């Protein structure tokens, strides 16, 4: 059917880019070389079998049927029929073989590409995920690879097959009768230029359609999400009218494509009929001159189909190929991105001590202004330090550097006396653990989610980690206990429960240094207490750096670091800092006046 629009490429590659992409694609396909060679031969054989059909019709008519030269030969006719039949069956077998073989090559390639791309993404450092939008990153792995899936699953066979058939048909008609061949080749230019025009005009029209669809869908989505507001203000009619406009816009954009294709398809069909007319008229004239036989004329009528179908199909596939190439270029772009935080050669394990030294650290995100200037800080093994400060001051960045999510531009971060840049990743991720402010859950059971802390942990280890935090009973009481699927409907965990899972994960990892980002949003009162208690257990005997949002939390730490404008402005105990009457004292005063309600209970 005529859905050209499904695959209109948004941006097309320049010739240079395209050839680079193709060369790299071929390099990636090299391991499949043997299969590709076999598949090529199979597809060529298939094209040959297809094109041999009309040749046999020609032979059957000229040698088997009566004409001016002889009175007919039933034997010759039957022979042609039998060979034709055999070839048709051979074509069937080849066709099956080709589809399976090409699918193995293509799908195998996509599988490999998925694994490789995802593996590479996972190896990239945090800066990549913070600068690129989530949607875009996900799109590389989904819509971009899916765009190729369509090419691979259907397009690839058709593309190669049609190319062979077309080239084969051109060769065979030229060999059989170059005069008649030139006659029908007259039809090719209008078809070629018509297709080019169509592609150009319809691509634009389909991009417009895509735009209109997305506008219309977002109007629709908004009208559904905002339906309560619409009804509350009695604006149903106005909103229905608004949707009517975007809906009609979509209709008109679609009708534009219909008008284009209603012009193009008649031209293509007419070219087909005109080709037949040329073969009959010009072929007939050539026959009377004795240049070609009647059988040749009949065969040409059949070959005409083999010339037109491929042009038609190839021009349909053109878009698919283009969007696949564009998608592949984007994927290669990701594969070429290098991780900024790397494990160096000869990296070694981190020692067990939890002492943290930040020495003259300066840091900037990319080429931007530094967000930390020459920060130095010593945290003793087992000490609890709270970082406070206004938004954007750099306290979170400091915490990220201690976890080596980034490397400092200048200075160094040491844990247990060792520069983090010399440390082996696996041991770093065991010794220094970050607990994010939102408990993030992966698809899977509660047990799987805790086990993320240490993938090789046994069931007993997982339960022990929960027990230490006083959470085992709580989660065991779930309908399916620790096997409860966390993402399934009905077993939705509250924000507090997610946080508990996140803490258990950290406990299982058993780190020396714990970095906590305090939640800004409220937990349900039911779990608030459990979280507090679990945290207390978790922090016991470890070095803790907490990025504090509540001053009540900060006040409980051993020492408080106030980060202000990228510098460590103040450092000391709560009492010391209040007495000092500077930044911290000011923050504390502002906060306590807003605690308007008396502390009850």
């Amino acid at each position, binding site marked *: *059917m005529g859905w050209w629009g499904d695959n209109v490429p948004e941006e097309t590659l320049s010739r240079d880019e395209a050839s680079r992409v193709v060369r790299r694609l071929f390099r990636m396909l090299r391991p499949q070389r043997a299969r590709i060679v076999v598949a090529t031969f199979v597809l060529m054989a298939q094209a040959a079998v297809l094109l041999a*059909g009309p040749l*046999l*019709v020609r032979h059957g*008519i000229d040698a088997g049927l009566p004409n001016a030269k002889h009175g007919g030969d*039933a034997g010759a006719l039957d022979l042609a*029929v039998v060979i034709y039949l055999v070839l048709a069956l051979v*074509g069937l077998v080849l066709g*099956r073989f080709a*589809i399976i073989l090409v699918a*193995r090559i293509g799908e195998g390639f*996509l*599988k490999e590409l998925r*694994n490789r791309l995802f*593996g590479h*993404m996972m190896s990239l450092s945090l800066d990549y995920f913070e600068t690129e939008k989530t949607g875009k*990153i996900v799109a590389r792995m989904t819509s971009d690879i899916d765009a190729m*899936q369509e090419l691979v699953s259907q397009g690839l066979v058709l593309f190669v097959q049609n190319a062979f058939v077309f080239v084969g048909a051109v060769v065979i008609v030229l060999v059989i009768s170059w005069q008649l061949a030139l006659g029908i080749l007259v039809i090719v230019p209008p078809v070629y230029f018509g297709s080019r025009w169509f592609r150009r005009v319809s691509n634009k029209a389909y991009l417009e359609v895509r735009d209109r669809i997305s506008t219309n869908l*977002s109007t*629709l989505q*908004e*009208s*559904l*999400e905002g*339906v309560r*507001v619409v*009804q*509350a*203000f*009695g604006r149903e009619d106005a909103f229905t009218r608004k*949707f009517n406009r975007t809906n009609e816009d979509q209709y008109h954009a*679609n009708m534009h494509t*219909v008008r284009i294709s209603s012009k193009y*398809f008649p031209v293509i*069909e007419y070219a087909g009929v005109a080709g*037949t007319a040329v073969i009959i008229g010009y072929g*007939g004239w050539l026959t009377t001159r004795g240049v070609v036989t*009647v059988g040749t*004329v009949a065969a040409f*009528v059949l070959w005409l189909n083999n010339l037109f179908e491929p042009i038609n199909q190839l021009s349909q596939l053109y878009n698919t190929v283009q969007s696949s190439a564009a998608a592949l270029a984007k994927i290669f772009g990701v594969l070429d991105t290098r991780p900024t935080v790397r494990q160096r050669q000869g990296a070694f394990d981190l020692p067990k001590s939890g002492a943290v030294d930040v020495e003259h650290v300066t840091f900037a995100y990319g080429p931007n202004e530094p967000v930390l200037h020459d920060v130095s800080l010593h945290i003793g093994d087992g000490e609890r330090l709270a970082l406070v400060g*206004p938004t*954007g001051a750099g306290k979170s960045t400091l915490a990220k550097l201690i976890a080596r999510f980034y490397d400092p531009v200048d200075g160094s971060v040491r844990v247990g006396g060792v520069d983090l840049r010399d440390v082996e990743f696996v041991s770093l*991720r065991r010794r220094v653990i970050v607990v*994010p402010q*939102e408990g993030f859950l992966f698809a899977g059971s509660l047990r799987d989610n805790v086990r*993320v802390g240490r*993938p090789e942990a046994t069931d007993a280890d997982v339960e022990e980690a929960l027990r230490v935090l006083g959470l085992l009973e709580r989660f065991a009481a779930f309908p399916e206990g620790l096997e409860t699927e966390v*993402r399934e409907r009905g077993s939705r965990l509250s924000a507090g429960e997610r946080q508990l899972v996140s803490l258990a994960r950290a406990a299982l990892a058993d780190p020396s240094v714990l970095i906590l*980002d305090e*939640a800004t*949003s409220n937990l349900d*009162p039911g779990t608030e207490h459990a979280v507090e208690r679990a945290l207390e257990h978790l922090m016991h005997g470890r070095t803790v750096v907490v*990025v504090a*949002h509540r*001053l009540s939390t900060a006040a409980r730490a051993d020492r408080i670091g106030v980060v202000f404008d990228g510098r460590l402005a103040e450092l000391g105990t709560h009492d010391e800092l209040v007495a000092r009457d500077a930044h911290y004292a000011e923050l504390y005063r502002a*906060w306590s006046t*807003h605690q*308007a309600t008396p502390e*009850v*209970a």
Partner: protein
Amino acid sequence: MDDEAETKQQKTARKEAEQLEGAQTRKQGWRLMREAVGAHPHLMILGILAGLVWAIARVSVPLLAGAAIDHGIAKGRTGLTLTLTAAIVAVGAVQAIGTGLRRYAAFGLAWRVETDIRMKLVAHLQRLHFAFHDQAQTGQLMAYANTDIQQINNVVLLVPLTIASTIQMIAVAVILLLRSPGLALFALGLLPLLNFSAARFNHRMYPVGMKLQQELSDVSGVVEESVTGVRVVKGFGVERMQRARLSSEADSVYDRSMDQARLRANFMPLIDLLPTLGLVGILWYGGHQVLQHHLTVGDIVSANLFVLMLIWPLRMIGMLVGQLPRSAAAAGRINSILATDPAIDDAPNAHALPDGPGAVRFERVTFGYGRGPAVLDGLDLVIEGGEAVALVGATASGKTTVARLLPRFYDVHAGHVRIDGADVRGVRLNEVRRSVGLVFEDTFLFSDSVRNNIAFADPEAPTEAVVRAAKLAGADEFVRDLPEGYDTIIGEHGYSLSGGQRQRIAIARAVLADPRILILDDATSSVDPTKEHEIRAALAEVMQGRTTIIIAHRPATIALADRVVLIDEGKVVADGTHERLLATSPRYREVLARAAVETQAGVVDDEELLDLPGVGD
């Protein structure tokens, strides 16, 4: 044993009921499509007529070609050959015009029907009651308006195209049968199999395709969670674990894709083979008939052309057969929504809202959501016109429900909700809604300019009115600082505002509507406490001469009210001034204290160390 037998019986009964329901849905789906198509008879007629012209012209070409070979070429009559060739060229022109028109009509009809049904669906959804929207998922409704309607489009498109193809097929069969029944048999005998195979192929492909889609969405699930949870993945160094999960999903995609490839390998070469067998049959049977002088070479050539020309129409019929039940089911799903009547609508004899100061009365109101437990249980509440009342209660105590019943978002199960003495069920819905201005807890703003968002209730409102409303809501200052002031586009596709800013715009929106009764449902909860007092001052002005219901926890906000009503378990349990309740009601103290703990956060800042892009779930 008996139990088991029973469950088995029940199972069969249920299955039968489901099947019956499916059949019923499809039947209604058919009706919906028939009606939608029936609204545009001219396109359908144009499509069929153009198709008829196209079919006749197309069938003439092989006949003319055959005649030219037999009477012109074979007999060396060049003049006749050229005349017949010219005839082919002329007929081709008619065919081309026919094909253009029939495509135009078929696609035009399909898009028109799609557009009409979508409009009808969306207009209906806008009118459906809150309870419906509470249960429906936006994604599901979007799918109805998008993919399901496309399924309808597919079938509407194919109908006129297939009618023309069928006419053509019959014409070819008749012509060949008249010329030679044997030739007709060999040429066309196997072609119905092609039709059958195409239908079967479509039918078998569909579930495999769905499975593949499922696997692809599982892949994207793993990717999405790895990206949104990248800090956890990196923080614990479990990249390898995620890679293994993706790898197993990628294997499943490979397996399902290969299932698809095998199905294609089973059907496609067969579908290609059938017409070829027709050509072989023509050569053999036709050839021998020529040898016996019953048929001519021209007959063979035209029979060949007939076979080639029928390949696509037959495949298309196969596609239509495969498409029909899917489209009917999709149309049935849409119809089931259209058949849902809005539960909240004007009563047959609905009257105007009587004039008044906005006095509110709840009389022994009982209410619960859907079939759930009662949320309000015989609640009595009287609010005088112009009075400001704070509703206080623990989570799920029913205070928000009170706010929702007043503008008649839901109807009470028992009792009465009255505004200025009139039961809201008897008043014209539009007037009830306009008399109550509600600022929701979860602020929803539209992707539109700030001005249009504030002037939502009255798009014609003059700029001064918009600015005044914004000032009263404490929004004017920050709006002026936006890149384009009041013309700044906000919302999902525009400038993103903080929670507090959104709430202030929502308050301005309610203020502009100038309602008799204003309800503020936790409307300042996201506003920075340091700024809240500015809004409070402005709110005091808005509340002048207007009945106001405030749902709040912060004592400072509660202080705006003349009176506090404590709601617990769906009933009013205490009523009086803030000071009196603090002194006399332990429950009141408890509720406030808990709320204070819950809202303690967020003073210092809201910088996130480990913010999850797009929050993962």
